[in-house]
């Protein structure tokens, strides 16, 4: 198969996987939590059903809202889609793979968070502002850990290009269990939990406005816009989970041009990402939500782990 066509296919496969797999991951985590609580729980496909229903509902805009309200979910969705499209998740040859810089991904995710926060402020309600303020605070505290952890990974392969990092890790399997990698994994784990709004940072199932972080920002959204918002967030979850899976366990990522490798890559990605989701769900089951002002402790811990990752990376180089 020719190279450009192959890249297009890889990108499409990744985007479709994230768009369908993201909601399924959310459903999987809800299912695991339900079973742990002794409930049967909603089926794993429930988030997809919810999306289908929301698509057909009415659009509502708050009276004082501006163009930001419908724009925010679009930006989240678009930024995440591009990030998914260029990351080497299934194969090391997606479209624009040379631009799949790890900082680009980090800042695309930041763009999504910023859009979400602005969307929360747009209607001019108390709860929306509260959610935005809290989400931005958590984001600002998680950002250092994320960026430094990412730099720890880049130092090891002396490139910040994701494709290079993945290929280098495939070539040096001993890196995976090196202390630097494990520390960076710990830091990224904390960041991923914070960025995807799971317990102990945020409770996605809360009904009480005063305890909300992410949910408070979307109180104003309804119908198709809410659907797009949920889809974008689900893709964000799947991107973060699969990035963690791919960066730390790169096996299965297709490197060549063959279709078979692509199929294997898809299978490996699904399994790895599902395992990450399972781990996160189990953490959620086992822990209680932290008070907002205890979060700095958790995130500072992530930051220290990431600094440790950089330093041990330098020491053991």
């Amino acid at each position, binding site marked *: 198969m020719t190279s450009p066509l192959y890249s297009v296919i890889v990108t499409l496969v990744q985007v479709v996987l994230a768009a369908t797999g993201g909601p399924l991951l959310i459903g999987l985590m809800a299912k695991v939590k339900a079973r742990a609580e002794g409930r049967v729980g909603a089926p794993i496909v429930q988030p997809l059903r919810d999306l289908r229903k929301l698509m057909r509902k009415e659009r509502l805009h708050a009276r004082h809202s501006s163009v930001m309200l419908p724009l925010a979910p679009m930006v989240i969705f678009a930024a995440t889609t591009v990030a998914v499209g260029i990351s080497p998740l299934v194969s090391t040859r997606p479209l624009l793979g040379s631009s799949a810089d790890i900082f680009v991904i980090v800042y695309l995710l930041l763009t999504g968070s910023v859009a979400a926060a602005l969307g929360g402020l747009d209607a001019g309600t108390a709860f929306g502002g509260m959610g935005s303020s809290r989400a931005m605070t958590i984001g600002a505290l998680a950002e250092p850990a994320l960026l430094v952890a990412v730099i720890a990974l880049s130092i090891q392969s002396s490139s910040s290009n994701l494709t290079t990092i993945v290929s280098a890790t495939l070539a040096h399997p001993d890196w995976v269990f090196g202390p630097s990698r494990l520390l960076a994994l710990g830091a990224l784990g904390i960041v991923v939990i914070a960025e995807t709004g799971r317990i102990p940072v945020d409770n996605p199932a809360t009904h009480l406005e005063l305890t909300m972080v992410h949910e408070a920002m979307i109180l104003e959204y309804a119908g198709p816009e809410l659907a797009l918002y949920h889809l974008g967030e689900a893709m964000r979850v799947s991107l973060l989970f699969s990035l963690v899976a791919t960066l730390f366990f790169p096996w299965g990522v297709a490197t060549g041009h063959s279709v078979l490798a692509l199929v294997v890559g898809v299978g490996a990605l699904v399994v790895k990402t599902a395992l990450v989701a399972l781990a996160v769900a189990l953490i959620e089951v086992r822990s209680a939500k932290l008070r907002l002002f205890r979060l700095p402790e958790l995130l500072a811990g992530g930051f220290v782990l990431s600094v440790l990752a950089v330093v041990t990376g330098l020491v*053991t180089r």
Partner: protein
Amino acid sequence: MNTTYVAVLELAAGAVLVSAVMTLWRRNVRSIISMLSLQGIALATAAIVLGWHEHDVALFVTGGLVLVVKGLVVPGVLRRVARLDPRSRESRPLVNVPASLVIAALLIVLSYVVTSRITSLAPSDATRLVPIGVATVLVGYFMLVTRRRAVSKIVGLILVDNGIALVTFLLTSGVPLIVELGSSLDVLLVVVVLQFLMVSMVHHSDTEQLTEMKALHD
């Protein structure tokens, strides 16, 4: 073969430092002690791997000793002490947790900067890891200074000792004298712990916080 040795050694040294940082992070005394136990095991692993690689029986034996003393006995004793006290949290450290974590990060950077110059004199797989040991010492010392509870202070002291032990293992692998010194330090430590235990028994009722002991003294 060699790469496995290096990987295990790095991992063990990394675990020593991470568990040191984790003791700053966690508030629950029981989980702090678990971290200490983990650190003892990691330290022992480092010693055993080094001893095995250098064909140094003394180091190998010391590793076993460390495993028993620091991995099992000392945490066990501490756990028993901690059980005497119903309040199982380090509630108000002198420096709050996020700040101490950031300071720990700076200490780690500092130790790397300070020691990298020394270690570059005789670079080998083992000496490269010396900064990690120094960082553990600094973190332990920091904990000793900033934590109020007696148990946490003892943990800080043990962290310092573990860090020193790691440095000596890494730098002087093969010198029995130093190794013996290290193990005797451990014995000393157990004595300190026992002594602490007695103190704690005496002031059993409500006076385990050292600041409060000072108030008693006045």
